[in-house]
């Protein structure tokens, strides 16, 4: 993949390294080492600093992740509405635990802070698309869309 080309597009944007990371991550699901080294070069900063940026934001990942990122809200309203049961269903369905990626590289489970859909809890997002008022029984059907 031409990550150099993607990163270079943001060279003159103030704070552009963050946008560049997002753009690369959209393609690769995570930020491999060589992307961070390249970004440091393009944005003229030490690799240690570019790595600091990459690890600061929870939406950026330096660990390999699946194609589809499933995030479960860990804020209070979702917690009360039964996020734990939804998590259990996801973990059972995918055969992994929170923070892990399925061996076929298709799914990763992560936590997220509140995504602002508290009118209908619990909430999960898949690749940024919110699913509100989710029950454990719906999980298999939702995942089927991405299998």
């Amino acid at each position: 993949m031409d990550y150099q080309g993607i990163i270079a597009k943001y060279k003159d944007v103030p704070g552009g390294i963050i946008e560049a990371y997002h753009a690369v991550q959209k393609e690769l699901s995570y930020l491999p080492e060589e992307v961070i080294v390249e970004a440091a070069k393009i944005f003229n900063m030490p690799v240690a600093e570019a790595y600091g940026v990459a690890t600061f934001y929870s939406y950026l990942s330096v660990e390999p992740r699946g194609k589809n990122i499933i995030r479960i809200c860990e804020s209070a309203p979702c917690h009360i509405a039964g996020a734990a049961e939804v998590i259990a269903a996801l973990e059972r369905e995918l055969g992994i635990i929170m923070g892990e990626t399925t061996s076929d590289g298709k799914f990763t489970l992560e936590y997220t802070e509140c995504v602002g859909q508290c009118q209908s809890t619990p909430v999960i997002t898949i690749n940024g698309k919110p699913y509100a008022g989710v029950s454990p029984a719906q999980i298999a059907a939702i995942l089927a869309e991405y299998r």
Partner: protein
Amino acid sequence: MVNVTINGMNVSVPKGSTILQAAQRVGIHIPTLCYHPDQSIKANCRVCVCEVEGNRLLQAACSAPVFEGMVVRTNTPKVLEARKTIVELILANHPQDCLNCIRNGVCELQTLAEELIIRDNPFELMIRGYEKDTSTPSLFRDPDKCVLCRRCIEACSVVQSVNALGIEGRGNNAMVVPTLGKDLIDSPCVMCGQCIHACPVGAIGEIENIEQFLAAVADPETIVVTQIAPAVRVAIAEEIGMATGELPMDVFVNGLRQIGFDYVLHTNFTADLTILEEGNELLKRVKEGGTLPMFTSCSPGWINFCETFYPDLLDHLSTCKSPQQMFGALVKTYWAEKMNINPAKIFSVSIMPCVAKKFEADRPEMRDSGYKDVDIVLTTREIGRLFRQSGIDFSKLPPSNFDSWMGAYTGAAVIFGASGGVMEAALRTVYEVVTGNTLEDVNFTATRGFDGIKEATVDLNGLEVKVAIAHSLSNARKLMDQVRAGESPYHFIEVMACPGGCIGGGGQPITKRNQKRVERIEAIYLEDEGLPIRKSHENPEVKVLYDEFLHEPLGHKSHELLHTHYHDKKKKYL
């Protein structure tokens, strides 16, 4: 000026001062942790909080600027309680192994716990569980002890421009890590050890070689020989309860005999030798159109820096080994022969103000004697520990002289310990070699002082030699970029990796303030002035070495034993 009241006392301070600075004026001590007198204000630990009238929240004294009529209280029950809780929370993540810690007795967190009367910490101890990094021969990192003050990062990035350290993660999961979260050896670290001085606790320290030393002393077959670097004497006094520079050299020598050294020799001897080799190398380059400017090569942190960041400029480095390694190569050849000692039985220990020297001694090319030229390196701090372990009372110890053939030295060698010293020593010799005249005043004061970059022009019988001196690698970087751009006006550049030169080295007694480094520099020049011989080429034992063994500077034997070459480190991440 701004008028402020602190704990009922009035004080006038310049506009823009902080509460901490104002409090210092009236002699009020406010405890700090992330604060560093020579660094930027970080205000991340919150230990220095105070009450300011009119503010509901406590203010961090290190960062809060004063204003006219400000009323500050630094020791109210609310303040003391808050500080205590803050330190208790830090301690709740901190391994409680002070008794085994390299910083036992010189730890800012330990001092804080004592000052704040910490007894029963209500917070559960939760050690983060990071692995210790012992990947380099010079430094270890113990991240579990890190208090996240970030002073090491500033030392590495701002002072040294090396950028081997950064922050990984955020909030509770934040940690100081080498580049890309890898081991230190894979980062651009040059092993200068300035992070050790910046660290308030034992999260970064030197790799100790004390056990190897004690084992060598315990073996009756082994002949333990030492060399002492010029910057060590002025600072070792600080390790044994004396003022900087106060321990006389000859008493120091006896102290070393007490802890088990069979022969006490001096790196100053090879510092003088370095001047003859390096001075002649410079003249040769000037005369024959060699690569200029020539850089000094005594400081192993600086060599690592060049090999890491400026591999295209390695030809500029003098090929002279550092005085430590010249000594190492000679002690197992020339000296062993002269003393009729089997070099295989010599255990060569150097006492250095430096942690990068440990790496240098381990370089595979440093075996020109046929053995490992320098077996181990002990820092000034390690020697301090050995002195304390042996319970030596230096106020009652009689003096003792250096042993022969590699123990004599001149004032020119002594000043190697301060930034500008190598340059001044070289000029003293080069001037006389080139002009044939005796130097009336040996003091080249333009090369002295704590300015980051110093320059001077010397007239050598019509030959104008332009020189520059840098200490701290961020200053060296400026001169290097000039060279790389082809715009350097200099013939000769001295670089010392550490602030102030070797007296501020990574192996010296823990020093937070540059002011302490300035004091050590003063002690160095005082020692130089008190010596009868102050020019390297007049060192009588160096003359014997050339007469009997080396024959001439830059000769065949010199090239074999005293010169080296450098390699591109090919670091993947800078």
